[in-house]
């Protein structure tokens, strides 16, 4: 990597440049470079690096911001013993399982269709990407109206299929239990699934994230050598064979990248839930705490209960999970990068 930046004279001693350039045996150290990186490092050190250590320190304190008291690992013990911690972890997992696979599958499907030299590809791409640009709060306001139990569109659509009206964002009952009740099949407590409120938020989240995954998949598809398709076609491969044996394997790095990014984002899920809870006049994480993810749980500890230490302990636990995912990504990309 570093050799690329050194003057070319060194790598090509006999070239024309070597004759015209004054000979330099060693690249000079440009001390003023530190001035160039100083502003960026100052900001990043103060607001990104320093806080990591401080967060761990705070996580071992109790009390409000100005009256800290050292309590050791007490906050961690408390968090790991709190039923809310485990239920918010479960909610986070539900949220991840309900958004990431759908967003990626739909994104891949649409990107693949768009990639078929379709007329107006740019327009489609612009439309599908639009929800990603619009602020979560504004779109949550609209979606909360769509899911309004009295006047919302969602219930009108359900009525077309003869399904009774639902409470959506204020419904704490598990979605599988609701379906079971509709079909008169008893569903055991452990299989209730995410609350209908969370499902409504997940639908909203998939709608918003879809454009991102389409754009990333399109870029990945663009990187696949077109000659491969030509060659396979000459050999008599049909459309689905092309997709299975060329597109999918060669798209694997893109898919993996998107998967890890999406997993990390969904572990951090906050904006969608916050905005939808507000719009449905629910408490944060409501109804009955069934939309409380780990991020929401942490935010409540800090914002509503003013327990900075406890919030930090939750954040450290959340970060460890995210770190694990990121390391997987780095490891994988380190390897795939060498191949590429």
């Amino acid at each position, binding site marked *: 990597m570093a050799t690329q*930046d*050194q003057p070319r004279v060194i790598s090509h001693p006999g070239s024309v*440049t070597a004759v015209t*350039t004054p000979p330099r045996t060693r690249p000079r*150290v440009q001390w*003023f*470079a530190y001035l*160039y*990186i100083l*502003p*960026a490092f100052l*900001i*990043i050190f103060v607001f990104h*690096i320093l*806080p*990591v250590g401080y*967060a761990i320190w*705070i996580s071992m304190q109790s009390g409000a911001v100005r009256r800290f008291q050292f309590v050791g690992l007490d906050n961690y013990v408390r968090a790991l013993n709190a039923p809310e911690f485990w239920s918010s972890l479960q909610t986070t997992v539900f949220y991840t399982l309900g958004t990431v696979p759908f967003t990626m599958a739909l994104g891949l499907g*649409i990107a693949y*269709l768009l990639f*078929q030299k*379709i007329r107006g590809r*740019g327009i*489609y*791409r612009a*439309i599908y*990407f*639009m929800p990603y*640009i*619009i*602020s*979560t*709060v*504004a*779109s949550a*306001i*609209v979606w909360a*109206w*769509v899911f309004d139990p009295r*006047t919302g*569109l969602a219930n009108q659509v359900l009525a077309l299929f003869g399904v009774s009206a639902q409470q959506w964002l204020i419904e704490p009952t598990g979605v599988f239990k609701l379906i079971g009740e509709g079909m008169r099949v008893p569903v055991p407590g452990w299989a209730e699934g995410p609350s209908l409120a969370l499902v409504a938020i997940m639908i909203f989240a998939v*709608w918003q994230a*879809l454009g*991102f995954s389409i*754009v*990333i998949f399109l*870029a990945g598809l663009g990187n696949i050598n077109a000659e491969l398709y030509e060659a396979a076609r000459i050999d008599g491969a049909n459309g689905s064979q092309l997709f299975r044996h060329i597109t999918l394997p060669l798209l694997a790095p893109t898919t993996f*990248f998107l998967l890890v990014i999406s997993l990390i984002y969904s572990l*951090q899920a906050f904006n969608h839930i*916050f905005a939808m809870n507000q719009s449905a006049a629910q408490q944060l994480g409501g109804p009955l705490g069934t939309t409380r993810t780990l991020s929401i749980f942490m*935010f409540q500890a*800090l*914002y509503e209960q003013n327990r*900075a230490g406890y*919030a930090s302990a939750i*954040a*450290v636990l*959340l*970060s460890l999970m*995210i770190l694990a995912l990121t390391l997987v990504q780095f490891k994988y990309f380190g390897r795939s990068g060498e191949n590429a």
Partner: protein
Amino acid sequence: MNRDRLKRQTTNLLIHAILIFGAVIVLFPFVWMVLGSFKSYNDATTSGFTPREWLWSNYPEAIVTMNGSVPCQFDAGNPLAILNQCLLLRYFVNTIFVGIVVVLGVLTTGVLAGYAFARLNFPGRNLLFVILIATLMIPFELTLVPNFVFMTWFPTPESWIATALGLSREGVQNWINTYYALIVPFTASVFSIFLFRQFFRGIPNELFDAALLDGAKHSRFLWSVVLPLSKPALVTSALLTFLGTWNALMWPLLVTNAPQMRPIQVGLTQFIGEAGTQVQLLMAGATMTVIPIMILYLILQRWFVEGISSAGIRG
């Protein structure tokens, strides 16, 4: 030949049908929002697609509701006073001001650091770059509490100087409820530094050698040769940064509580409670906040999309 063409046309038609169906679903909430913003309350809460009567009055009413039912009055003698009076306007001005300053900060710190990492030779360069990239792994949640604590510690420069000189009796103010809290922590972005470094490395060495032979200094070379060539990287970084500030929610919620300091997203969150069940006002409020970014998107659509995809591919 003919059958082949027919087959391809049918496939194309099918693909278009699927894509249009999807596009309608994606666009529908926006259409529904705009239509809803023109309906009366009764109209909005009963079924019906288009408004029976197009009510423009929802918009001024939404603005007044945002103000706590005080109408916005423009005073020609003191035109700036409207910023303290008309909250929607204030939210917009706050967001745009913060966005522009953050973008300028990110571009300045990013271009300088990116240039150093791409073109300059100094001890520890690789190590420092690795440290920088490693900070990308730190989730926002982890730094949230400490940064919040910092905001209660840091003094605002003007109150600090005023107190030191004995001009103010209010004492030193902290960063809570100030633009400093909304701006300063975000004025450097590792992603942008990385983007600029990659871009600057792509600039041909010949150009670099020629300019330095001419005796141009690095600062001048950066300003007059590198930057004009780097428009794509500058625009991508600026757009993504601006979008990030425009949509920021958790941090501004924490560090602002005075209505005058709220950015648009926090203001809109507040407005949800203020409008209550008046759906048509909520839609009008949402539409007003969506339109500026929508226009920006429609004009700069290509940059947004390509910026995201290059950012994604490079990780």
